[in-house]
C-alpha cells in the first residue's frame, strides 16, 4: 500500500478533531453551530479526496476497506 502523505494525515487529524468538537457540542443546549458543521463537512471531504487520490501500491490501494457511492435524492426536479 502506498504511503500516506503528510497532507492526508494532517487532513484526517483535522477531521477527527472537528468530529470530537461536533460530538461534544451535541451535548450542549444549543447544539453544534452551523459553522462547525460546515467546517467538518469540508474537512471530511478534503481528507477523503486525499485518500481517494493516493496511488495504489502492489495489490489493492486500501485492502480490507470499501468506498461507498453516495446515495442521492433529487427533489429539485
Amino acid at each position, binding site marked *: 500500500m502506498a504511503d500516506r502523505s503528510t497532507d492526508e494525515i494532517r487532513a484526517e487529524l483535522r477531521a477527527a478533531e472537528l*468530529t470530537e468538537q*461536533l*460530538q461534544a457540542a*451535541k451535548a450542549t443546549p444549543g447544539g*453544534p453551530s*452551523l459553522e462547525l*458543521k*460546515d467546517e*467538518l*463537512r469540508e474537512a*471530511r*471531504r478534503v481528507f*477523503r*479526496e486525499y*485518500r*481517494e487520490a493516493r496511488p495504489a501500491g502492489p495489490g489493492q490501494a*486500501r*485492502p*480490507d*476497506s*470499501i*468506498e*461507498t*457511492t*453516495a*446515495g*442521492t*435524492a*433529487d*427533489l*429539485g*426536479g
Partner: protein
Amino acid sequence: MAITASGLFGLTLEKQFIDTLGLSLESETALSVAMITDSATPDFDVHDFWSDLEANEVSGTGYSAGGATLTGTEVTNTGGLTTYDATDVTWASSTISSAMAAVGYFDRGGATTADELMFLSDFVTAAASSGGTFTIEWSASGIFTVDFTP
C-alpha cells in the same frame, strides 16, 4: 436478486419530513450500520424496516449481528444540497466476506420489525476482510445528498 444502486428508503424519509419518526439523523446512538450480501433485493419504495433485509446480513469473526453504531453524524446544507455524513465505520480484527452494501437503520433496541431503514450504500463490488480491519469509507460526497433545488 441483486443490489444495483445506493438510495434512500422512501417510507422512512417520508416520516422524517412529516415528523412522525421522533428520531434524529444526528443522533450519536440511534443509528446502526449493518452490511448485507448481494442476495438482497432492496426495494426503496416498499422496504421500511431492518427486518426486510436482515436475512441477508453478512456474518463473520469480529462482526456482530446488527452491525455497528453510526457516530460523528451531521446534516449540512450548501449549494442547494443537503448532505448527510458520519465517521467511517470499522470492524477491527475481522474476517468478513461478500459484503455488498451498508444499510443504515434506526436501531430501537427491540424487534427488528420496528427498526426503520434509512439508507443503503452500494459497494458496487463485494468486499471482504481477512483478520484485518474492515472499513466502510463513506464517499467524499457523504453518505447521501438530497438535491433540493431545481
